[in-house]
């Protein structure tokens, strides 16, 4: 979440999930919340029941969009112009929060100049949303006393994902909608412990608690605590590691509980890279597509068989408690890591996950007061939690931003990496659905979840379906410049003409064979959301 970190100094949800139900205006962008974050959607709908206004920015008519007061069905990839137009309306209508801008932010003039040069009509035309609707949305948001913006992968998975997020932050700061309870900017995290994995320094450029690898002082601190000298240069990102090709510079990999063979864009490249390694070891609970390529596979314990903590989207660190013993010879990943580390000449000994947390608390300021005994006796604590007596922080940036002043980062329009053309005339978008989770490694093992939804579908507009002679449920071949897959057509007006939509949960139809690996330069986030495709009806033989 590089975008928010540069503007606010911290990349996490600024609010708690429960604050969302007290907001007066909720702006949702690029998040299929009812399916990906059911509890957050529940708060949004509760808020609507109490009279809040809901604005949804999404190319598709999602379930949430159907409940919205305003649905801005923008063309995919035009988020920045849309938000810029909204900001221009705020300026023109005198809805900018001058006091907030003066006291708490910097670089406002750059944003103002950019907005004043904007041709509103042309910008609106670019997004495909009527200017009147944009203006209405901006005024609703600008006039509210308490307003939150929630966004998800739909925003970050673009070539310009970082700028998208910065533009959202610009909008919130311009309206002064930050730093208060029930008001803020809330990136919804996809997987259950993405927030925790980032917090723990599972990042190539950050040590735990966002202490930059490049900073000598931070390295010194960790070198003293760990008793070794640390590599200075930031490492490679996931995409750089898994796309090096057969003879890339990465020769060995250790993959814990991830399945890049299904979740990565451009699968062929990943397969080639993983097959070309001298050594691959995978630790997982099932024999995933990635594990099948490994030289060694470790059977891992699952969440019910070990203790530790997870950090949810709202920065709440909470306990995971062991309920049963692992089946067969499965072992917890922590045990496996300690065994390997000892064999490689760096002994690590911890008697429990609580002991590991003590070390985390000592070295990571935002986790300074996180101790298992405290977490165990509460519903968890929200970081930053500086010391043992600190109660945790439900909402961020009160009085000052993590980085000091909020920094406006104006951004213009960047066209998506690949747009439809006569040869590949349709725009493909990808996402997730309610009954499954990420690559389906876990959820597809559930009988009931599989009964609800057991195959991949391609959503297509009735007009496009008619043009291709497609009927409901028929097989279609979907192809892009990189590959092709077959799936079933679902004819629906949730998607507009010229667009198709599918999910990435099914290994029989690995959508990432098709997607584009142009990636966002700021965060290294692959562009899953948009690529050009064509469809062809399959002839029954």
């Amino acid at each position, binding site marked *: *979440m590089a975008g928010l970190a540069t503007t606010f100094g911290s990349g996490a949800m600024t609010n708690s*999930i429960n604050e969302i139900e007290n907001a007066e205006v909720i702006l949702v962008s690029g998040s299929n919340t009812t399916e990906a974050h059911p*509890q*957050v959607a529940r708060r949004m709908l509760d808020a609507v029941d109490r009279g809040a206004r809901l604005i949804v920015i999404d190319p598709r008519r999602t379930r949430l969009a159907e409940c919205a007061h305003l649905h801005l069905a923008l063309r995919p990839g035009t988020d920045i112009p849309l938000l810029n137009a909204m900001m221009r309306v705020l300026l023109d209508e005198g809805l900018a929060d001058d006091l907030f801008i003066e006291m708490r932010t910097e670089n406002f003039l750059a944003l103002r100049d950019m907005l004043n040069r904007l041709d509103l009509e042309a910008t609106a035309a670019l997004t495909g949303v009527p200017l009147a609707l944009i203006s209405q949305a901006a005024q609703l948001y600008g006039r509210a006393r308490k307003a939150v913006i929630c966004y998800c992968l739909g925003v970050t*998975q673009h070539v310009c994902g970082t700028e998208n997020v910065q533009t959202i932050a610009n909008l919130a700061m311009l309206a002064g909608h930050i730093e208060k309870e029930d008001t803020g900017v809330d990136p919804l*995290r996809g*997987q*259950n*412990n993405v927030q*925790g*994995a980032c917090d723990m*320094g*599972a*990042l190539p450029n950050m040590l735990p608690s966002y202490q930059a690898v490049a900073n000598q002082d931070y390295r010194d601190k960790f070198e003293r605590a760990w008793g070794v000298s640390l*590599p200075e*240069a*930031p490492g*490679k*990102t996931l995409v750089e590691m*898994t796309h090096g090709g057969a003879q890339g510079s*990465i*020769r060995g990999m250790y*993959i*814990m509980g991830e399945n*890049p063979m299904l979740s*990565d864009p451009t699968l062929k490249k990943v397969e080639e890279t993983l097959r070309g390694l*001298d*050594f691959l070891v995978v630790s997982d*609970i099932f*024999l995933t597509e990635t594990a099948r390529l490994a030289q*060694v*596979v470790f*059977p891992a314990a*699952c*969440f*019910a068989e070990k203790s*530790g903590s*997870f*950090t*949810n989207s709202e920065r*709440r660190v909470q306990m995971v*408690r062991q*309920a049963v013993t692992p089946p067969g*010879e*499965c072992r917890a990943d*922590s045990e496996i890591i300690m*065994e390997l*580390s000892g*064999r*490689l000449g760096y002994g*690590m000994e911890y008697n429990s996950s609580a002991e*590991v947390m003590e070390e985390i608390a000592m070295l990571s300021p935002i986790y300074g007061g996180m101790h298992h005994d405290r977490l165990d006796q509460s*519903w968890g604590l929200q970081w930053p939690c500086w010391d043992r007596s600190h109660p945790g922080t439900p909402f961020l940036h009160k009085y000052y931003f993590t980085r000091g002043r909020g920094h406006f980062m104006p951004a213009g329009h960047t066209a998506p990496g690949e747009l439809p053309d006569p040869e590949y005339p349709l725009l493909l978008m990808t996402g997730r659905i309610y009954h499954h989770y*990420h690559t389906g490694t876990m*959820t597809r*093992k*559930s009988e*009931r*979840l599989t009964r609800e939804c057991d195959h991949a579908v391609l959503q297509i507009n009735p007009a496009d379906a008619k043009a291709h002679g497609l009927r409901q449920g028929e097989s279609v071949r979907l192809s892009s410049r990189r590959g092709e897959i077959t799936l079933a057509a679902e004819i629906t007006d949730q998607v507009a003409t010229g667009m198709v939509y599918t999910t990435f949960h099914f290994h029989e139809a690995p959508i990432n064979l098709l997607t584009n690996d142009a990636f966002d330069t700021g965060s290294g986030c*692959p562009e899953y959301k948009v690529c050009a495709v064509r469809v062809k009806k399959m002839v029954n033989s």
Partner: protein
Amino acid sequence: MHDVLTTCVYCGCGCGLYLHVEDAKVCGSQPSRHHPVSRDNLCVKGWHIHESVNHPDRLTTPLIRKGDALVPATWEEALDFTAQQLGSIRDQHGGKAIGVLASAKCTNEENYLLQKFARTALNTNNVDHCARL
């Protein structure tokens, strides 16, 4: 039968739920009434969380590749072989030739240990996870 309070693993909401345990097996789940996120409610994924725990396809022994097949091995063999392979890559090409992927599905403590392992024992900052996915 007894219940164990824990945290759901299927999305970033982080609902609090009780796992029902019977005969040393997880056989069901139920939302926590007072947990600030779940508030007596789970989505369909939370209600069926036990099904993946008991699935017959779970891996139960370490596997080592012999030719085209992955065959069962002991922990000693698997760990020794892995350490020897990673060690020789590290010693020949340096830590920068090794990549480590942590997991958004694992605990904080495990992620902490894995990045520490990468940076100390393997001497590399090539550590990342699927945050962006």
